[in-house]
């Protein structure tokens, strides 16, 4: 009737071998042969990895899952600002995908997607293709470098780091901070909403300020915010800046960066020229490139509209989108990417059995920000489906911390431990 667990492990072992040694698969052939109903997932971040695990877990391993990821390791973006503050290193935030393969029998394929054919239902990579019954796109965000004159991907990699995907740039930005002279200015520019992790830039300001306070107290953090006001946890961040880092953090609203001079380390906003010693430009964002390949980035050619009962694209059948790429009145957070992934996973299991998805999803978001090396603040909300408007809306309640605390700092660390376990183990 169905494959037992041992068969699955054998199959997945074979699949992994092919994935690791792409030379075995001739170009134009199927990378892992499809045996039964299959979901292919592009992107192994918080959303994609969670969807992979939960489809396997909740279907009693009956649905095949192939997870395509270009990186060999999972690096958590949540909490990565603490690398700048110095209380963590990037290796503390790095995990492997071994358990997803071994415990759940997920086929891991490492590579870069080059094309998606929604009619033939195939995903193409450099060394072959994968066919699917349903596809989940979970690419996170890409950066719109062209919105800032003088900026591009190469410049971002080499000198003006965004560090808005945790990894090499995070560590390089920390090094720039360490190399800065006392009395220097560390400028952080924030794009207009929506962008990944709304409180993230303000948390980053706290982490940089925390390092400066202890090491280079004459220095400054300058926040250039394209938005008219602090977009998340406003009172808590303002209190942290005033009480923990007096004279260090300066906040400027309505300061959208239009241009950068890389050699001169200057920025141009509509009103100002700004010179800084470290430039941390966080560019405007859009759905990851694979969303474009799948033809699902239908909102301003930038984000993806979905049916919130299944996360199926509004414009392509059998293609689902989860996480930061989704167009929604939901914050683009790691926790919500996992919550969306689970609604999507449950819906796909129902749809593949000819049934309807859960008509009444309610999902939660808990988001901590570290305002010092030990203290944190949070925002938490429940969101539920509104059948009339067909959107996710905040439920009653929800809100932010009464004040920053070390208790929340501890809870934030355990949040990371629990969510990483839920996503990857």
């Amino acid at each position, binding site marked *: 009737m169905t494959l037992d667990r041992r068969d699955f492990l054998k199959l997945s072992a074979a699949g992994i071998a092919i994935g690791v040694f792409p030379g075995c698969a001739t170009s134009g052939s199927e990378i892992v042969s499809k045996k039964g109903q299959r979901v292919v997932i592009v992107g192994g971040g918080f959303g994609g990895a969670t969807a992979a695990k*939960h489809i396997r877990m*909740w279907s009693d391993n009956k649905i095949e899952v192939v997870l395509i990821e270009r990186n060999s390791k999972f690096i958590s973006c949540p909490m990565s600002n603490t690398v700048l503050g110095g209380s963590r290193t990037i290796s503390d935030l790095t995990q492997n995908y071994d358990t997803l393969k071994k415990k759940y029998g997920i086929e891991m394929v490492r590579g870069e997607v080059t094309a998606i054919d929604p009619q033939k239902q195939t995903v193409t990579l450099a060394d072959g293709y994968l066919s699917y019954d349903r596809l989940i796109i979970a690419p996170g965000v890409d950066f719109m470098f062209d919105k800032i004159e003088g900026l591009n991907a190469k410049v971002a990699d080499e000198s003006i780091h965004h560090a808005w995907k945790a990894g090499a740039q995070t560590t390089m930005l920390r090094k720039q901070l360490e190399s800065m002279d006392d009395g220097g200015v560390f400028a952080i520019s924030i794009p207009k909403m929506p962008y990944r992790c709304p409180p993230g830039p303000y948390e980053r300001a706290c982490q940089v300020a925390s390092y400066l306070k202890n090491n280079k107290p004459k220095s400054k953090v300058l926040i250039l915010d394209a938005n008219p006001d602090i977009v998340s946890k406003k009172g808590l961040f303002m209190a942290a800046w005033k009480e923990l880092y007096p004279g260090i953090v300066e906040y400027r609203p309505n300061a959208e960066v239009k241009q950068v001079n890389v050699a001169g380390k200057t920025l141009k906003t509509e009103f100002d020229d700004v010179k800084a010693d470290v430039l941390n430009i966080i560019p405007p964002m859009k759905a990851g490139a694979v969303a474009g390949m799948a033809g699902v980035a239908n909102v301003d050619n930038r984000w993806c509209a979905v049916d919130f009962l299944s996360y199926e694209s509004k414009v392509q059948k059998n293609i689902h989108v989860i996480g930061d790429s989704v167009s929604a009145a939901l914050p683009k957070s790691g*926790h919500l990417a*996992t*919550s969306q992934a*689970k*609604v999507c996973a*449950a819906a796909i299991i*129902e749809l593949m059995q000819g049934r309807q998805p*859960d008509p*009444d*999803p*309610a*999902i*939660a978001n*808990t988001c901590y920000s570290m305002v010092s090396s030990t203290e944190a603040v*949070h*925002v*938490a*909300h*429940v*969101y*539920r489906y509104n059948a009339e408007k067909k959107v996710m809306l*905040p*439920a*009653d*309640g*929800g*809100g*932010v*911390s009464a004040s920053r*605390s070390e*208790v*929340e700092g*501890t*809870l934030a*660390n*355990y*949040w990371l*431990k*629990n*969510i990483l*376990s*839920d996503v990857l*183990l």
Partner: protein
Amino acid sequence: MKMIQHQTLTIAGAIVLLLFTATSYAEVDAHARNLAASCAACHGTNGHSVGGTPVLAGLDKALFVNQMKDFKSGARPATVMHNHAKGYTDEEFGKLADFFAAQKR
């Protein structure tokens, strides 16, 4: 005779297994499971916290419901949970309680 007995036992075993599978499927309330899945970021997969937060797996139903009601009303002060509890109905507290109570510790 021995052979037949063996076959009978195997068939019986298979039937039991099928029944068990069917039953365990029917017992899973997918909506409750989906609701509970959002708790995992802090409380672990299926309520199996890996540290720092209470283990919800195997928790007594009445205890779960009463604590959630107290978080919701403010009778029990909380750091974070009052913000979540207010977002759920009492009926949902019941569904979540059933789901977590059914998870093995």
